[in-house]
């Protein structure tokens, strides 16, 4: 099939950026979306132009590297599918496709379709872990976890950190990402000790990084290639309220 692409090109953070038009001929329906871009890039290189920069790695929908707005939708038209797993059979001959980077203040563009998502790492740094020194763990079966809880924790932990939720959100909020980690660790007994500090710390960093507030649009859930549920944001909000009430005055001990 033949397609017309409009691709965001931006040399660097200080470049204004613009959409460039490319004709893609001989696109096979079996190609993945990224392979279609590979073919364009091979041609651009042969023509002496700079290829389109985009992030990708595993191309199996698990590393979370790839991500781009395809016709205004994060990862394109297929639900529960990352851009790398999207195949050209989802398009038809003659289609025009607009390809842009994630748009969010907290995700500044580095080049073309590549953005800086390091804010996600800093949110995790603020509490997205269980503090357990290597070697200090009890036996794996010492604490049974109801299967239901373990399964629910897994559902939250399956987040790949791609940033589609932020790109989809009209407020560019990263609450779905943040809540997925808060919920994962809040659902298992190992995560209880740090539960209240975790949610406070992660939400504080989330806000400091310039991500917007959640106003329950639900666009994040629709865009999420792993089907992370909006319910986790509700869970986060409940935890955050409890954590705020539980917050101790500075210097107070256990009984304060």
């Amino acid at each position, binding site marked *: 099939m033949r397609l017309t692409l409009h691709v965001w090109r931006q040399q660097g953070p200080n470049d204004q950026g613009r959409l460039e038009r490319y004709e893609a001929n001989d696109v096979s329906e079996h190609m*993945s979306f990224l392979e279609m871009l590979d073919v364009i890039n*091979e041609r651009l290189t042969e023509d*002496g132009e700079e290829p389109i920069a985009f992030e990708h790695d595993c191309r199996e929908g698990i590393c979370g590297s790839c991500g781009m707005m395809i016709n205004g939708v994060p990862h394109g038209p297929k639900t529960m599918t990352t851009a790398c797993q999207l195949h050209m*059979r989802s398009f038809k001959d003659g289609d025009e496709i607009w390809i842009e980077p994630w748009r969010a203040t907290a995700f500044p563009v580095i*080049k073309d379709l590549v953005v800086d998502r390091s804010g996600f790492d800093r949110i995790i740094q603020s509490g997205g872990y269980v503090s357990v020194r290597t070697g200090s763990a009890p036996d794996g079966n010492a604490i049974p976890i109801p299967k239901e809880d373990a399964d629910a924790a897994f559902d939250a932990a399956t987040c790949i950190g791609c940033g589609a939720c932020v790109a989809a959100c009209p407020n560019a909020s990263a609450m779905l990402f943040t809540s997925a980690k808060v919920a994962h660790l809040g659902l298992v007994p190992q995560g209880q000790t740090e539960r209240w500090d975790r949610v406070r710390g992660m939400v504080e960093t989330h806000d400091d990084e310039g991500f917007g507030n959640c106003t329950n649009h639900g666009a994040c859930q629709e865009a999420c290639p792993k089907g992370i549920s909006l319910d986790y944001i509700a869970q986060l909000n409940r935890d955050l309220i409890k954590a705020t009430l539980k917050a101790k005055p500075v210097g107070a001990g256990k009984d304060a």
Partner: protein
Amino acid sequence: MELHSNIPSGPIADKWDKHRFDMKLVNPANKRKYDVIIVGTGLAGASAAATMSELGYNVKVFTYHDSPRRAHSIAAQGGINAAKNYQGDGDSVFRLFYDTVKGGDFRSREANVYRLAQLSVNIIDQAVAQGVPFAREYGGLLANRSFGGAQVSRTFYARGQTGQQLLLGAYQALERQIHDGSVEISTRHEMMDVIVVDGVARGIVTRDMVSGTIQSFTADAVVLATGGYSNVFFLSTNAKYCNVTATWRAARRGAGFANPCYTQIHPTCIPPSGDYQSKLTLMSESLRNDGRIWVPKHKDDARGARDIPEDERDYYLERFYPSFGNLSPRDIASRRAKEMVDSGHGVGEMKNGVYLDFNDAIGRLGQDAVSERYGNLFAMYEKITGENPYETPMRIYPAPHYTMGGLWVDYDLMTNVPGLFAIGEANFSDHGANRLGASALMQGLADGYFVVPLTIGNYLARITKNPIPTDHAAVKDTEAEVKSRLDKLMSVNGSRTVDSFHIELGRLMWNACGMERSKEGLEDALRRIPQLREEFWRDVRVPGSASNLNQSLEKAGRVADFMEFAEVMCHDALTRDESCGAHYRVEHVTEDGEARRDDENFAHASVWEFNGVGEAPSLHKEDLVFDNVQLSTRSYK
């Protein structure tokens, strides 16, 4: 090159304990005086970085990704082995050790494998304590499943995303240490070379992939956790960025590269669909439990699978191996599939696959039961191919998947270059000539959480602290070499893209040094690789500039290293004049067409010393001694 494996004396079960007592320790107050560089943030790198910083070392960690969580460990599906014996089915440390040595076709180092089996139990405890959501039974205890090459259920898993969950556990531990300020991380930094001063590893040179800045970092020790080299074949199940650069650069600086020809081919991947194919996707091997593999009896049969009557189908694995049938080991299933495709029986538009058919299973168990077992895999298959495997059989074909070879290391996981360590898939130590399923995650985490954080102390406690300034001559020379190589890549300005060279090298390697190797094919490859390399340096085109984000330049550097490395791989495959594990020389097969080992002449690790580009590398040997297992021959008839 001198190779001292430094295996502790004494009974195998006591070696690690004894070694831990004999090792020199760095006292807690002194640990912060030592700088350690870790390259790579997959399971091995992230777990090592987190643990070493907990111990008090000053850790600097580097990744070429935007975040440590992207490392390719994340893509591991199946599970992680551990000798917990939670099922009470007779598992033990010794059994896991034995299975691993046997699975590796008796080409691994006993002492290392035993330690791996011992540490496997600690890994599960550690991961559970981090909150890793492993699969559980209704009673709340950890669930297990069985995996190829074992007769006990010892594999722990988190649906089909075990690698992801374990990596996130290690990543979170690492992020915690970064937050505490005890680990300094440089993301989007690619290691370009190792700095060796007076024969000792003292740092690395990196390229900032956003600004293009070349910078040196010095330290008291360097740990490479940079994964495997399956992408030498271009098409593999590895992530696109996976490459040999870090380990190859170390090899060029004097580190021995062991057993590069041991590369594992996975039998059940989705075949390529066209010339644009960028990578291959693995479908879990568990599918072979219920799927039947077949090809049409007639060559070039153009009918659809369902139109081919039963008596015109060749269920070749069931025919060749009546007792193991569709569950024959990975290497055997792979080779037979290639044989079928090569002889014109391939299926699909490109005639490059074999059928994996679930029709009988659906008839026997019902569609719901099949969907319960394999639903997510069927959905993934449909996403990629657009075909519904409930209606038409899957098409599968083998693909490169894992590399057992890697930098030679001693019992402490240190290479022959003092101060340079290699962990995880980057080293050669534990899997011999073939890795068992669910053992890669185990090894990466054993090395990173439990081995190298201790053994590095044994090295650091013995050296005299002697800081290297970043304007030291050796540092400046290495930096200059890196820069001149990048300049050279940028200035060729030829006519061919980097990928076109990578694809050509990949095809050449797949044909000569892939599933089957022959003397003739390898000798031919050894003639052609230097020609291709010469053409690369004469005609490659790298657009853009070296002073900002340039993905073509990144690829070019990696492909240039593959061009040199491929030659050593072929030398190794040619010199290893036997078949063992995944290394299958057509000259050495049994009457049944199986691999024929030659224990008398080849029970050693082959360690290659770099002598210059285009020069034949020198072979060194580490003899493998088997005191605890009896060497035997596999049979799956």
